[in-house]
């Protein structure tokens, strides 16, 4: 007993550390090994003492994380991601039909925090690389910064800042500049980097094997002087995520977006491909150039079918393990702007297959999407900025391949091939462009 107490005191001294330096498990192991060699301890006693000491240190570190920090820090979760990209833009960009290439290096950094205010309220905020130049179509739809301008430093912007009140498990109200977008299987209609400003009421209910959801949203597009009304979008999305079987799932939603006070005005971040002039204020002879000619009231149904281990039986029968892919999915969406009579529809459809998560070396995913959006099917401040620089009136293909390099890091290659069908972005009609992106992604 006396021997054990002496040894524990010695280990305790090392563990606490003269000068409070960090403990190394190896030091304890070395001491115990010496004590076994000298016959002071048996091998079993050494295993017991060493293991229990390490467990105690681990538990005290976990306790220590919480005992000395303020509660809001204890409840805070931080995360982020970093991406470095090579991008090639290839296409005819002039009336003379000259093909040119643009090669760019780009970088993106995003850092975010979530913290609990109390049991029902949380606050989230995030900063990212980006631009606040609201005249650029990139400002809302991209966090990339290019390697350019003589090694100049890059800006960090407020990406999102919002609060979320969840009085019940089935209801929550969010407000601010939000890290939120309604569900859709592709980013054709709404770029994934957009962080809308306004409020969202989310309702959900589990009904048998189905998870029902209903999102009601109101976002501000522009805020103007008191004499005119703000441009807003009011939206509602109802849908269900249904487990048909253990391996088959179906997610579908119907959404309606009413873009209020857009007709007859201009919006920042526009690519200018929706119909503009000629438009005149009734009773006036003056033309107002650059203003939206039509309103936008968009209905969009969307569906995604997911199949887990679709070829497992074939893989097992043939012994070809490469056929045993974890997930196969098919998806589609349709857009219809009810406020116009022509050139107001679009669609996107595609498939994806591979591993469900890219979280280790060798995990992979492939995805293909074909999309077509007529010039007034979608408001031109929203579409994915990689597809023909975020314009409407285009059609084309996107293929992507992701490959896991290890935990929290992966490579992605994406290829976009789009042509202009009826928009005014390029004076050279039907000028197809090819964009290739090679990304090295990391998250933490």
């Amino acid at each position, binding site marked *: 007993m006396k021997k054990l107490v002496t040894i524990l005191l010695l280990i305790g001294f090392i563990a606490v550390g003269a000068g409070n330096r960090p403990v190394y498990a190896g030091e304890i192991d070395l001491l115990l090994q010496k004590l076994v060699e000298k016959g002071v301890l*048996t091998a*079993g006693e050494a*295993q*017991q003492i060493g293991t229990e000491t390490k467990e105690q240190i*681990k*538990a005290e570190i976990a306790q220590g994380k919480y005992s000395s920090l303020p509660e809001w820090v204890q409840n805070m979760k931080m995360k982020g991601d970093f991406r470095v990209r090579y991008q090639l833009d290839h296409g005819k960009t002039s009336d003379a039909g000259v093909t040119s290439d643009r090669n760019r290096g780009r970088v993106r950094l995003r850092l975010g925090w979530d913290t609990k205010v109390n049991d029902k309220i949380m606050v989230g905020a995030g900063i990212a690389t980006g631009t606040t130049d609201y005249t650029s179509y990139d400002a809302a739809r991209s966090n990339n910064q290019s390697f350019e301008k003589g090694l100049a430093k890059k800006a960090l912007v407020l990406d999102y800042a919002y609060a979320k009140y969840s009085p019940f498990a089935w209801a929550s109200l969010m407000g601010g500049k939000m890290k939120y977008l309604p569900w859709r299987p592709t980013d054709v209609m709404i770029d994934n980097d957009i962080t809308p400003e306004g409020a969202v009421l989310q309702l959900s209910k589990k009904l048998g094997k189905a998870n029902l959801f209903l999102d009601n949203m109101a976002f501000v597009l522009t805020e103007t002087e008191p004499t005119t009304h703000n441009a807003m979008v009011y939206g509602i999305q109802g849908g269900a995520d249904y487990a048909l079987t253990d391996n088959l799932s179906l997610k579908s939603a119907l959404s309606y977006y009413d873009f209020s006070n857009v007709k007859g005005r201009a919006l920042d971040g526009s690519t200018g491909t929706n119909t503009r002039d000629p438009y005149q204020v009734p009773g006036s002879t003056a033309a107002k150039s650059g203003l939206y000619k039509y309103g936008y009231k968009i209905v969009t149904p969307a569906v995604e079918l997911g199949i887990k281990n679709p070829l497992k039986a074939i*893989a097992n029968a043939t012994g070809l*393990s490469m056929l045993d892919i974890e997930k196969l999915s098919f998806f589609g969406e349709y857009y219809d702007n009810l406020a116009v009579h022509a050139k107001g529809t679009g669609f996107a459809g595609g498939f994806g297959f591979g591993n469900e998560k890219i979280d*280790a070396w060798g995990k992979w995913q492939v995805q293909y999407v074909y999309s077509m959006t007529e010039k007034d099917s979608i408001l031109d401040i929203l579409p994915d900025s990689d597809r023909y620089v975020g314009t409407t009136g285009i059609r084309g293909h996107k293929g992507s391949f992701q490959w896991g390099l290890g935990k929290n890091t992966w490579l992605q290659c994406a290829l976009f091939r789009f042509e202009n069908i009826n928009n005014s972005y390029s004076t050279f009609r039907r000028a197809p462009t090819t964009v290739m992106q090679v990304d090295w992604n990391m998250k933490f």
Partner: protein
Amino acid sequence: MRVFGKILLLALLMCSLAVPCHAEKIVAEGSTTVLPIAQKAAEVFMNSNPGAEISVRGGGSGVGIASLIDGTCDIADSSRSIKDAELDKAVTNGRAPKASVIAMDGICVIVHPSNNINALSKKQIKEVYTGAVSNWKQLGGPDEKIVVVSRDSSSGTFEAFGTLALDGAKVRPDALLQASNQAVASTVSRTPGGIGYVGLGYVSSVVKAVDVDGVKASKQTVLSNQYPIGRPLFMYTNGAPKGLAKQFIDYILSPEGQKLVEDEGFVGLK
């Protein structure tokens, strides 16, 4: 004096009536590796302590630790160390898991007795379990498809094997998953091309344990860390063990309890 004795007897009788005559009861839950130790020790302990009631359940190390964190068991039996995420959850639940090492174990790689393979390297074991090798002839054995048997993800044996033998690599998706050490041993014993892994206490004449990196699993090789797939076995309590839980764990760590550990096929600490 007689009167005094009668008064004393009456007082003692009243005191015994005042003390509630209920048995103290604890629940031990978790690892199927630790289960035979816990069950045998509980049986012997309760025979010697009629007032004690110890209920022992399996379910896997993850299940036991989760129950300790939720407060639905008193002792979590575990064949792996508690994870950081579990510790964090315990802290937010106001629980303080404390580890008591009760034995050591070697995770043995087992094959069918008819298999002529007697030894495998860790590299070969990893290749078999990750799908890089699929036929015994690639390892110098018979021309027969390897049937890989593994454990489900709530198992501490699965976690320990994955860390110590596979370096965190994922088990091939066509592996047959079993819910307990016993089930793994049973499956391999009935499958000539089978390979599995079980705690040392589950190796019997119906299966054959192979040497790993040239080392046979034994008390000496496990305690000295020579055997590469050795691990401690834990009983976790909420804070330092107290009451019946302390008595039970102290019994397991006693010479009599450690003999019982070795009788069950594990490695005692004494």
